């Protein structure tokens, strides 16, 4: 490792030494190429990071299914699907909550309905707003 660092240091020194001799046209081309490379790196950074993590986690030595390893190596941009996955998870959670609410509501109304439909008084009596209000007013006035 020390040798590698030393070599890298030497190469950098040599390159820096040669900077003064680079013609202006070549310097401009190098600058343009550097900008281009940086732009591409910015776009691909998330994909490379995820693919790298996936590659490490789902490497050849692991026992994960080949399909998952294939996904990881294929470099699919999971970051792009994150908002979609979050929305799907949110909607699923909401639906489960609504489903539970529905089960409770149906149980409660079933119990009342079965008693109401079998009572001596018909449902029309309890649905007759004017009759019921009249009874209530009358009893409260007494």
């Amino acid at each position, binding site marked *: 490792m020390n040798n590698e660092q030393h070599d890298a240091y030497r190469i950098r020194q040599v390159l820096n030494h040669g900077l003064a001799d680079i013609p202006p046209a070549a310097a401009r081309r190098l600058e343009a190429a550097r900008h281009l490379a940086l732009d591409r790196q910015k776009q691909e950074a998330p994909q490379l990071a995820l693919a790298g993590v996936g590659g490490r986690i789902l490497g050849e030595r692991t026992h994960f299914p080949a399909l998952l390893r294939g996904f990881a190596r294929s470099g699919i941009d999971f970051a792009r699907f994150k908002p979609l996955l979050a929305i799907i998870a949110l909607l699923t959670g909401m639906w489960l909550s609504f489903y539970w609410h529905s089960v409770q509501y149906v149980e409660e109304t079933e119990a009342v*309905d079965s008693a109401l439909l079998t009572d*001596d008084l*018909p*449902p029309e009596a309890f649905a007759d707003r004017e009759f019921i209000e009249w009874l209530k007013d009358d009893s409260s006035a007494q």
Partner: protein
Amino acid sequence: MAQRRLLGSIIAGLLLVGSVLAEPPTSVLIGTPPQPEWVALSPAQQNILAPLAKDWNAMDSLRRKQWLGLAERYPDMAPDKQRRVKERMREWGRMTPDERTQARNNYKDFKQLPPNQKKAVKEKWKAYLSLSAAERQRMREEGKSTELLMLMPPTETVAEETRAAKSAPPGPSP
């Protein structure tokens, strides 16, 4: 960004409030899975729910689920109650959701009454039904509901309430 979040929160809040206030709540309608069409019901279910055959396919999933629940309870009911359920099924099914909700709430209140008051309400309803629409309106505007009991032959349980309702002092006893 903050404004969008605030707007989103307000919309979500309004949806939640609307969902709670509506009857049946919107969340319940969304959370009820699809229920079978009439032809997919078992012969036993079709027999019990026969009065609803024509209306079944037009019902939403929630109503179908409620009726299927009632059909499950049906075999455990006494024969006279089974007859009542079948007689009242169609009319109950054709009420609006608001009417059914109101009827359920009134019924819950009614169940809290002591037995003698329940009996009085039943007698009043019978007398009320015997009146024409115009007479009902006149009674509601001018009289008390206890006057309805005077239209009926007094029974043991309501006789006391009937006597109390009479404004005239009792006549001399023979």
